[in-house]
């Protein structure tokens, strides 16, 4: 969850008091707050973490990083929808203490 991923700003709109960009991560488009990067404009690449752009990056580095992250399989996890996140968690059944040794009672 500490990963920040690069994307291209396709469009900038104002949502009430926020500067919001439609940011394209190699095909997946997300709504991203641009308030921390006032210098970023349409067509620029920016590093995004949990819906917030935190720094600018050049196009070449951005595209290389996107390709690397996709190949490493971390892109899907970062951009997962709510349903996908629950599906992933459902796939990981657990009991916090299978041997009962940490049961407070």
């Amino acid at each position: 969850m500490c990963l920040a991923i690069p994307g291209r700003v396709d469009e900038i709109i104002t949502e009430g008091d926020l500067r919001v960009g439609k940011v394209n991560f190699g095909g997946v488009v997300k709504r991203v707050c641009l308030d921390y990067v006032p210098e970023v404009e349409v067509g620029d690449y920016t590093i995004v973490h949990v819906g917030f752009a935190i720094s600018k990056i050049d196009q070449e580095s951005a595209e290389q990083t996107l390709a690397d992250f996709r190949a490493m399989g971390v892109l899907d996890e970062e951009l997962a929808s709510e349903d996908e996140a629950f599906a992933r968690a459902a796939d990981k059944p657990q009991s916090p203490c299978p041997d009962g040794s940490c049961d407070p009672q």
Partner: protein
Amino acid sequence: MKYLTEFRNGEVAQRMAREIHQLTTRPWKIMEVCGGQTHSIIKNGIDQMLPACIEMVHGPGCPVCVTPLELIDKALAIAAQPGVIFCSFGDMLRVPGTNGDLFQVKGRGGDVRVVYSPLDAVDLAAKNPDRQVVFFGVGFETTAPANAMSVHLAKRRGLRNFSLLVSHVLVPPAIEAIMSSQGNQVQAFLAAGHVCSVMGYWEYPPLAEKFKIPIVVTGFEPLDLLDGIRRAVRQLEEGRHEVENAYPRVVTFEGNRAAQSLLAEVFEVTDRAWRGIGVIPKSGWRLSEAYRDFDAEERFQISGIRTAESPLCHSGDVLRGAIKPAQCPAFGKQCTPRHPLGATMVSSEGACAAYYNYGRFLSAEELASAGSATSGEVHA
């Protein structure tokens, strides 16, 4: 895995690994602080490309792993209350509390939602004025600007039904605590690139000076990690201890000023308990006086929490870098990602899960010799 072979055989990767081998004359222990980097090192087998005497120690840098059990239990209690919409990042769903996890709370009828961004939680609060919306704000400095903005917006928009359950931890005090701990063997640090993209690296020179350690700001891709390790080894071999930026395409010395100024307004420094490690002085953030009304711990007075960690779990030793996951007696036996006993097994960025998922069942000695076998290949 195709990517792995390509990376391992890649000209640049080979050249960097060769350079590290040529530089190395003595054993060194280097800690990567960030869980994302641990994941990348193990997944790409970077530790196995290094000389056998270079040991990568996996630090406490997974916010999911170090969130204290008491706070997880509070989250579970709040999420189970009627009228609450409890929002979290997906990573937190399966973190074991004393009795169950958020996923189970949802199964029992709790309204638990996964959001991509804290902004989504603020939107939910605006759309559901008759419900209390709580966001579980965990993370390092990378995530803090997002969480700070969510509270700031809620205040500006007058949303009285939004609150933040805060568990923010900071990297520099953790480095300080590790270096000051008894029996510490870490000799150099790779600082987490994305933390530094927000905070810059002006906090690190005093640490490098005080403990005489090289600190290299490093990215997450395999080549970035090799480069960071190479720079750390070179400094160690030359007896230098400087702060170096090996990630200049994203990180500047000052960091993101706009983010830092909102962080200073919304948060204040506080002592924080790190799961498995204990309390580290001034190692986290809580909401400042002006935003205290938005603190979920104040809004929902949850009392009577009794926590119990599994006595089998050694995640504290893993997080401090004292043992490797495979040295924990429960590793791969009573404790697996399907039945995690500790948080370092539940998060994909936790060291135990990274070792398990990539088949690292070897002892430290076996790992070391596996490392030298691989290094032979690199030389060839």
